[in-house]
């Protein structure tokens, strides 16, 4: 409870700081003053104002917006899957849900022409939802879903889906899915306003839906029986949470590929700041997720002397050790 009122301003400040950093850092280094005048349309010294404006407005700003949507949506999806499965290790990537979305998105790209606005996210959503149900069903025993078994099934289904994706890449007609391999590693470099616009409605819908389900998700943490006896329509809420979490993960994958571990690291961090109540956890995780992915993207863009790393590589570099830490700590208290 400490510092209850200060938490969200601080999270927002961290986010603004990360955004400012991301706007100024890159092959063309800009001062914060230049960034500011580029956004407000004023002029500044140094690099020509026109160049600065172009870099900021057409390259970096859309990328930041995409990063916020992707990081926020993946974190929200992680929070939702964790409540649904009562498992703090659940993450759309580890569960194989992102892999399912990628297969769905690839199918749409292969079968349908162009960067189709509607079918691509929908197919990715369906792929995500199907993969999630497959993992849940395979992991389920009469006594419930054990957390290790769930992760194991996620990994196995994920490996299978990865193989499917590789096959699709190999068999696709040349030029049909350009940049597929890079996209699969998780990529924000295709951040254009068009893509931001494509993703935004789904993320907005998903986040609002989850927020409306927040009290139900609180009760799900108690276990199905206790939630039911406390007055929750358990099956209805679980179905809604499952579909919404799949929608968020799926549509994100359709736009920016497989970015893992965000849905694992960020909810954990957010919970340690605001607790497990979902009314506060969901907004905190969204903000923190956006901040996290923007910073990861800055690292991805600047770490090498030339070219850039897929942002998925950065999140995995941080996330895999973090997962091991959580798994080892697991037998002990939360």
């Amino acid at each position: 409870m400490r510092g209850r009122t200060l938490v969200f301003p601080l999270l927002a400040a961290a986010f603004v700081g990360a955004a400012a950093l991301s706007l100024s850092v890159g092959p063309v280094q800009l001062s914060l003053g230049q960034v500011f005048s580029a956004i407000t349309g004023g002029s500044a010294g140094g690099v020509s104002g026109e160049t600065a404006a172009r870099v900021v407005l057409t390259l970096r700003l859309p990328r930041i917006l995409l990063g916020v949507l992707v990081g926020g949506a993946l974190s929200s999806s992680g929070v939702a899957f964790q409540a649904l499965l009562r498992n703090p290790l659940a993450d759309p990537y580890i569960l194989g849900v992102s892999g399912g979305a990628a297969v769905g998105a690839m199918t749409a790209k292969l079968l349908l022409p162009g960067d189709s606005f509607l079918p691509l996210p929908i197919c990715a959503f369906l792929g995500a939802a199907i993969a999630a149900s497959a993992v849940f069903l395979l992991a389920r025993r009469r006594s419930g879903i054990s957390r290790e078994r769930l992760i194991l099934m996620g990994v196995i289904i994920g490996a299978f889906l990865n193989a499917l994706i590789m096959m699709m890449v190999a068999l696709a007609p040349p030029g049909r899915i350009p940049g597929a391999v890079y996209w699969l590693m998780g990529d924000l470099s295709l951040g254009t306003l068009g893509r931001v616009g494509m993703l935004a409605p789904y993320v907005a819908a998903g986040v609002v839906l989850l927020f409306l389900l927040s009290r139900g998700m609180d009760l799900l943490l108690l276990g199905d029986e206790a939630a039911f006896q406390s007055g929750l329509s358990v099956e209805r809420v679980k179905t809604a949470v499952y579909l919404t979490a799949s929608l968020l993960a799926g549509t994100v994958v359709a736009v920016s590929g497989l970015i893992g571990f965000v849905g694992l690291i960020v909810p954990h961090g957010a919970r340690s700041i605001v607790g497990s109540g979902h009314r506060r956890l969901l907004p905190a995780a969204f903000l923190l997720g956006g901040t996290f992915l923007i910073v990861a993207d800055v690292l991805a863009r600047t770490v090498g002397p030339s070219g850039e790393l897929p942002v998925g590589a950065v999140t995995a570099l941080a996330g895999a050790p973090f997962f091991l830490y959580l798994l080892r700590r697991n037998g002990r208290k939360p």
Partner: protein
Amino acid sequence: MRGDLLTAKALTFRYGDRDVLAGVDLRVGEGEVSVLLGPNGAGKSTLLKIFSGLLRPHVGEVTVLGRSPSSYGRREMAKILSVVGQDPPLDFPMSVEEYVMLGRFPHQGFFDAGTAEDLREVERALAMTELADLGARGLHEISAGERQRATVARAIAQGARVMLLDEPTAYLDIYHRVAFYEIITRLKETCGVSALIASHDLSLCAEYGERIFLMSGGKVKASGTPEEVLTPGNVLAAFGVAVLCDRNPATGAVRVTPQRKA
């Protein structure tokens, strides 16, 4: 005779091909503290789950306030009946107070959670279970006994007319066992809350219970006041243990003492 709160008629329930309940008949009156006694596997937990609507009987009929449990909406049911069961461990950080607040769910709309009334009820429940000082503690930081009391506090905060409790004193020491039955008695006397408790505390149930149902092999073998039910013959038949049944000289309640095997 007060009205029937819970009734079961010729209730049968199977897990696979095993009859867990084989023709249970039972009535719990409003404003009563009733106890289900019986050995492990006698069907006590299953019976409680059927009353709460979690399981449906294969044969027979149950009613809660005259209606089938499945005919109630979830929130409506939760306002009538709260349950203290054996919940799985919680893997997420949560304070005792937040946990007890979850019991207020049936009374809350989306925009009016955590009202003054909610806070008052949570405070009252914490005070009754002697957890007021631990409200800000994490659930994982307190002992098993304190967690069990927190579960009881959550059910109290739910503000239902009847509480179903499945071995609510399993992890409690003798002080807190007695305190638990005192709480149940107080809830009955001050708020008219009824209780149906599945328990293994024979003597304490005799002290605090008004009506006892002795179950064994999926049937109610005896029912009535503690004096009527807790006889050496009944206890031997249900538990397979020879006992001495006498009266507590201080309170006059039946006292059940196991006899060492010769």
